[in-house]
């Protein structure tokens, strides 16, 4: 059977042949947009492009920032199989399918990129079979873009007890047949080359953010060493984009070294990894803010494992572009729907007699047709319940991505964020970390926040601290990061503001000392790095 199929050597130039289907809209209309003009000239596109990648390294994408609001940006990301609009959420289709949904449904929902897991696909159906079938795109007949992760994430989460990490690579015990399986950076890239996704991820050494000690540092340096092996092993740089992953736990210094190291390699895009693994939200957003602050403006930034709608909004405000998470589909299988107000648990008894749709403002197939009462009788008992709720939840995430994009393009991003927050926190009890993050993102959310004085107070403190640093620091480039990291530290430390105000000066001088020490440390590291 396989003899008949011609392997496409250059996926970039070959459109996946599509069979006609009943209910799909006009599929990728990006035929004319590929190959991107980056290798030729930039004049082909008539939209004003604020910034796009320089043409040095071979890469199979074009990233054009269309609009910005402070750090937030809306961009057009042209990949071999699809032209995407960022910020975007990528649903996870671990084993070559988004659980329970057909491709035509995914297109109806508006999915632009879906994710596959290298680790799972390498086990079943194996990458050789996928290559034989002409790549995962052809195997599952998915016409749009695709991303495969490296298998690194499986080390931290579910399968840590099955993995043994050494400098050579990761030895997994196969959950299918129990055989040991060595995943080296080279092997990971080769597998991903065979799978043939538009974006492939470098193998990184992921550690839980909740652990401390030298393991984090080891993992960060190893990630940097492995990226070179990944680049070396990458066999299809003109069809597939290799993204590097920033590691370094919650330590801003380590993160900074990692970012710098990766940026030096001039990759098509960068991911912020190692997050969403149980760390507190305050550390989480700070790492994101730090990384997006120092990653190049003209490359896509992908925050791995982020999928709560609130996190997506915050990260977008901080300048991230891509997200992936199993959350919308997994929570759907457990009977929870995502709604602007938060979540709706359809298993609850009260839903049995609720004749309203899941979300009356949603225009997805599920909300247009079904009542909560009907979904209630399906959830967690029938496969159909998972299908319908997954459909709704993904629709919600796609809509959120679209709204983020259009609100940035149309210059009403702050209003969008405020509307979003005030729907989710009608009492004005916006979590503090969100307030702090928005402060850094330069978005005024005081209108939907119940304690505006807290925010402004924090800002004051940060400002004072910030000015002090810059005046006493020699490397202006590094200062910005340090200032950010340090400044934010303060704001979170003196949050319960009444006490803060009373003893404001004391605390501030304390903080100032701390900061000085921190700067000292940073400078030492900096020196070491220069050498």
């Amino acid at each position: 059977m396989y003899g008949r199929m011609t392997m496409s050597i250059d996926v970039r130039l070959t459109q996946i042949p599509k069979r006609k289907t009943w209910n799909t809209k006009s599929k990728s209309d990006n035929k004319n947009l590929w190959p991107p003009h980056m290798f030729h000239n930039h004049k082909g596109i008539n939209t004003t492009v604020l910034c796009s990648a320089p043409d040095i390294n071979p890469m199979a994408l074009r990233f054009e920032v269309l609009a910005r609001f402070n750090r937030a940006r809306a961009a057009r990301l042209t990949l071999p199989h699809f032209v995407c609009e960022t910020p975007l959420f990528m649903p996870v289709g671990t084993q070559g399918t988004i659980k329970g949904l057909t491709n035509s449904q995914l297109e109806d929902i508006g999915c632009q990129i879906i994710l596959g897991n290298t680790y799972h696909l390498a086990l079943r159906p194996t990458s050789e079979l996928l290559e034989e079938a002409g790549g995962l795109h052809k195997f599952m007949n998915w016409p749009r873009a695709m991303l495969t992760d490296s298998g690194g994430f499986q080390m931290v989460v579910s399968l840590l007890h099955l993995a043994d990490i050494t400098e050579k690579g990761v030895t997994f015990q196969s959950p299918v047949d129990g055989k040991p399986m060595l995943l080296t950076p080279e092997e990971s890239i080769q597998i991903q080359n065979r799978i043939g996704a538009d974006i492939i991820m470098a193998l990184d050494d992921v550690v839980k953010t909740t652990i401390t000690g030298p393991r984090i540092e080891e993992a960060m340096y190893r990630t940097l060493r492995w990226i070179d092996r990944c680049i070396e092993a990458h066999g299809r740089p003109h069809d597939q984009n290799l993204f590097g992953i920033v590691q370094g736990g919650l330590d801003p210094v380590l993160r900074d070294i990692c970012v710098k190291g990766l940026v030096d390699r001039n990759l098509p895009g960068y991911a912020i990894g190692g997050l969403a693994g149980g760390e507190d939200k305050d550390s989480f957003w700070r790492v994101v803010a730090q990384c997006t602050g120092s990653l190049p403006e003209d490359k896509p930034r992908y925050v791995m494992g982020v999928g709560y709608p609130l996190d997506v909004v915050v990260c977008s405000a901080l300048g991230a572009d891509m997200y992936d998470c199993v959350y919308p589909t997994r929570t759907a299988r457990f009977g929870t729907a995502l709604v602007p107000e938060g979540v709706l648990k359809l298993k609850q008894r009260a839903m049995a007699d609720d004749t309203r749709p899941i979300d009356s403002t949603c225009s997805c197939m599920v909300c247009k047709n079904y009542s909560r009462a009907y979904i209630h009788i399906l959830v967690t008992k029938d496969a159909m319940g998972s299908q319908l709720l997954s459909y709704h939840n993904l629709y919600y995430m796609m809509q959120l991505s679209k709204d983020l994009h259009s609100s940035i393009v149309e210059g009403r991003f702050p209003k969008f964020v405020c509307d979003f927050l005030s729907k989710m926190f009608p009492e004005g009890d916006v979590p503090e970390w969100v307030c702090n993050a928005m402060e850094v993102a330069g978005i005024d959310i005081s209108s939907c926040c119940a304690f505006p004085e807290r925010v402004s107070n924090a800002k004051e403190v940060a400002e004072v601290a910030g000015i002090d640093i810059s005046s006493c620091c020699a490397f202006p480039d590094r200062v910005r990061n340090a200032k950010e990291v340090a400044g934010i530290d303060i704001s979170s430390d003196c949050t319960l503001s009444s006490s803060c105000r009373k003893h404001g000066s004391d605390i501030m001088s304390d903080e100032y000392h701390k900061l000085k020490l921190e700067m000292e440390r940073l400078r030492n590291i900096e020196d070491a790095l220069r050498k």
Partner: protein
Amino acid sequence: MSLSLSSSLSLPLPLSNQITTTPTMGMKFLVKKARGARVGALEIALLGNNNNNNIININTPNIVISTCKGLPHFISLDLLSSIPSSILQVSNLHFTSEGVSTNTISKLGGLHQMLGLNNKYVIVSVPRDSIQSIPQFKAATKFAPSFDTPSGRLLVKPKEYVEMISCMKPNIWAALADEVPAWVSHKRNKTSVDRTLKWLDDCLALNPETGSIFGAIVGGSNLEERRRCAEEVAKRNVSGYWIGGFGLGECMDERPTLLSAIMDVLPDDKPRMICGLGLPEEILQGIAAGIDLFDTTYIYTLTLGGFALTFPLDKNGNQQNFQPSQIESDSTKINLRATAYRNDTSPILEDCSCYTCKNHTKAYINHLLNVHEMLAQTLLEIHNTHHYLMFFQVIRDAIQDGRFEKFRQTFLESRRVPFEGEAISA
């Protein structure tokens, strides 16, 4: 093979040739031939949104698509349109046993609104669905039949049942039946007929004024009881007949006699629906006897097992030109779990026009089954339903052309060939 459904039944019914109208709400049944295999058209008027009636035309013989809680087991509403059928079987017990009150359903406006079917589908409500709601003869009382459901055993009294029906507003509904398996005593069988008749009278007396009622016919494997039940039900004012008590352990060979005994008694101008027959052979048996609608779980069973129907839809019923792979196959269907399909990049059937065959390969479905992804079932159910509907189309064409008997013989004989070969080699 001409498989276009649209041109399926132009029914050039000359008026002299038995046109019958059933007086009850919005249902009309036109049937061409009286005895034996017959083609007909079931016309059902659904009240549209703007009060303009939407007429749904269902060509018979046909299957009533089996559903779980109103949707085919793995096919959601947006994919349902890819299946060329518009008649769904719904078990009303699914809803009430899950804690949704009938009040809520009627507040929503009935099942049509609840299921978002937008008046494009005919709903046939039958309490037994053979999957989740199974008649339990031991627990039935003289007041009510009993059903085993996922949320326990339910006794459904006629009064409650009619109440459910009037809230759910199906287009067609079957009366309650005391279904007993083939092995029960004569006395129990007789009781079941008496009870079923009594409950039918109760249902009729309560007169819910919604949909068309189909009288239930039971009687197990007893010819006398079957005939008595059919005769009694035929006397009542019902719009059609629902034949129960099959597929419950009776021998396949005794079915034709039982069925023809029933059909002899029933008036020809009303539709007949049967529950419990599903295999292609059984379908042909039923059609030969004069059954119009089949409520079957065959497709569901196949789908769960990872099977895809592949038997040829030859217009003469010939099954011999089919070259099945010898692995995991009985020449009528293939087991997609088999490793033989691991790298098979062809669709299930090259000339099938279903969503699955148009878009996906056997290798992909094999992978999905392998990793327990539920999309496998969705794709298989779409294909199997589509294939079976096409099978019915071929049968209708054969009846129309007056060559059904020949079709049936060819089908059955050529289907047996691979097995005969096996028997010899063994």
